[in-house]
């Protein structure tokens, strides 16, 4: 998910005392823990998804002030992050989508890669319908619009969900992301889950073969098409929709309730997810769209930090044991103390069950068979 936030927010994300550009010039803060003395103010490198980048920047600034450890995260996209960790050029990677099966299999030769969900994202359908206060859609109707079977706003399928609302007899202008993105991955995953036709004809990926519509580049491109054309519908990240006051659609969730997108609703989706994989198991099939729960927003997803299960065997030549340990301590901090910085930047907090799962996964990461985090 490409995450584009207004400048003010980006600055907030960077933390007031140290915008990231200046950080390298500032001497490292005095070491406060034994662990950071060992890593000696050294920089730890990660790369990947751009969606969590504002949050990671915030974490990086706070963590640097607090522990004296510098985290460099390059937002190069989920695909780039997955490639970087498989190439062992980074200590950790960020990805909105879990590793696909072939890459997960590939990583097994090096002892496997673990997924640590670090925050949550949500996708929101937005429309441009002057005179319509709030529009209600179900998943299958949304899928129908994006498959091109529902083409008019006053189609009975839409009108039936919105009694008493005057819908125009106009063609629906459909907009989607043109760039490969986690947002599209989550959105198409939701459509595939609620509509078997979508699953078989289109499927789920970071970019797909869209049956109808025009592509806009990034959240700003899609919202540009939507705000520039009456009768348009598109989908963007929750944060982008909220900050730009786009006209959001209410969806019917798994429990049959009409819900508007909220951060609580997204956290509820993560909490409702049954049987998440533990430790080094594959996350390829994980999908937290259309989860049960009264409040649950149905188009939600995790975004992950990726680590090697055995950092010593996989990365021992490129990464020292101290740096590996420091990386894991940062991840530990991010899923605990770091969560409080999420909501201000429109990142919903992880539910307790997922934090517990992350703890187990992080404790299971080893250095030549020996656990790296002992406490």
């Amino acid at each position, binding site marked *: 998910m490409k995450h584009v936030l207004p400048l003010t927010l980006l600055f907030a994300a960077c933390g007031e005392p140290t915008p990231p550009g200046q950080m390298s010039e500032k001497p490292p803060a005095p070491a406060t823990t034994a662990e950071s003395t060992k890593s000696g103010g050294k920089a730890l490198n990660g790369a990947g998804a751009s969606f969590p980048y504002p949050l990671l920047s915030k974490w990086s600034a706070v963590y640097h002030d607090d522990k004296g450890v510098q985290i460099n995260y390059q937002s*190069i*996209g*989920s*695909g*780039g992050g*997955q490639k970087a960790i498989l190439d062992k050029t980074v200590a950790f990677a960020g990805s909105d*989508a879990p590793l*696909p099966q*072939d*890459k997960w299999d590939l990583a097994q030769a090096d002892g496997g890669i673990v997924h640590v969900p670090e925050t949550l994202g949500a996708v929101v359908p937005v429309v441009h319908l002057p005179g319509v206060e709030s529009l209600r859609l179900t998943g299958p109707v949304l899928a129908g619009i994006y498959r091109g079977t529902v083409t008019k706003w006053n189609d009975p399928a839409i009108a039936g969900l919105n009694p008493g609302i005057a819908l125009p007899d106009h063609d629906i*202008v459909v907009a989607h992301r*043109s*760039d*490969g*993105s*986690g947002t599209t991955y989550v959105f198409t995953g939701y459509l595939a889950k609620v509509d078997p036709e979508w699953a078989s004809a*289109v*499927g*789920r*990926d*970071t*970019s*797909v*073969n*869209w049956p109808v*519509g*025009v*592509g*806009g*580049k990034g959240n700003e*491109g899609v919202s*540009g*098409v939507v705000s*520039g*054309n009456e009768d348009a519908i598109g989908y963007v990240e929750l944060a982008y929709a909220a900050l730009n006051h786009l006209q959001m659609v209410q969806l019917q969730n798994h429990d049959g309730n009409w819900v508007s997108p909220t951060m609580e609703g997204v956290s509820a989706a993560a909490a409702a997810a049954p049987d998440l994989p533990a430790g080094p198991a594959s996350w390829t099939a994980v999908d937290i769209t259309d989860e049960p729960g009264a409040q649950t927003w149905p188009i939600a997803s995790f975004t992950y930090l990726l680590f090697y299960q055995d950092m010593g065997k996989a990365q021992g030549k490129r990464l020292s044991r101290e740096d590996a340990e420091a990386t894991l301590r940062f991840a530990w901090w991010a899923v605990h103390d770091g969560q409080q910085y999420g909501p201000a930047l429109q990142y919903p907090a992880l539910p307790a069950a997922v934090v517990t799962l992350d703890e187990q996964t992080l404790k299971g990461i080893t250095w030549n068979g020996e656990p790296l985090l002992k406490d």
Partner: protein
Amino acid sequence: MERRAAAEGLSSATLPEARRPAAPRGLSDRSFRTILGVLAAALPLMEAVVLVELLQGSLPALRTFGWHFLVGRTWDPVAEVFGALPFIIGTLLTSAVALVLAVPIAIGTAILLVEYATGWVREGLGFLVELLAAIPSIVYGLWGMVVVAPLMRAHVDPFIEASPLGWLPIFGRPLLGLSLLTAGVVLAIMILPIVASVAREALLMVPSEQREAGLALGLTRWETTRRVLLPYARAGVFSAIILGLGRAMGETMAVTMLVGNTPAVTLDLFQPGYSMSAVIANEFSEATTTLHVSSLFGVGLLLFLLSLVVNSMARMLLRGLSHAGTR
């Protein structure tokens, strides 16, 4: 020209060698030549490296799809079926629209600047043309999205449809404003400065004797321009057009913001399309499967080859033209 060359030859021949330290001079000449040689060799070497990289990267896709990669109409990352035809067509169509619109304006501007305008008009207009070239393409893209696309949708597209032009098979039913036509229109503005300034240079190179001869024969200014200047400068004007075409084919950011990014095989300029560079920019960073990445490399390879073909064809044409021109 000849006189100067002769004078130089004379001076180097007659200057007593003994007065100058011969050895260092020869040495510095030789080392300078070596350095130049290395620098010059770096360019083809770089091109070779790019070509090898592109070939290597696209090998899985070319092996899987073979010939169908070139003519396939489907681009489906989920089913992993990749055909590049929609992008090739999109790149060619948007570039063609850009050329058709930009070339007359650019060459007209060049003629005005060289032959007609004087004083501050010449200065000011020349400056404005160069200013166009200094605007980053993302700004063109934004402007296109906010200003041009709505304008096209609301006014230009319906106007074209209603006019006799609307009968042409390249115009169907106006749709959104994000279309091959809109991308072509903004591309035209983007390539205008380079075409205009190179064409201006070519016209400035025409010796004033030619101009005077034309006028002396009783030709009007326009006739002189049309019958004497343009034929004389046609090689240079032609390279100006080719440079513009190259820029149009490679332009990414503005195109992707305006073209609608829909991989459809269509000749209808009102429809959204896609271009080769745009699909690479859009999908590369989040492409996760090997075949998807490789297919994007494949599109890059095709773009490289397409530019090569277009450039060599232009060069051949140019050679023909300049032979005709010098006679």
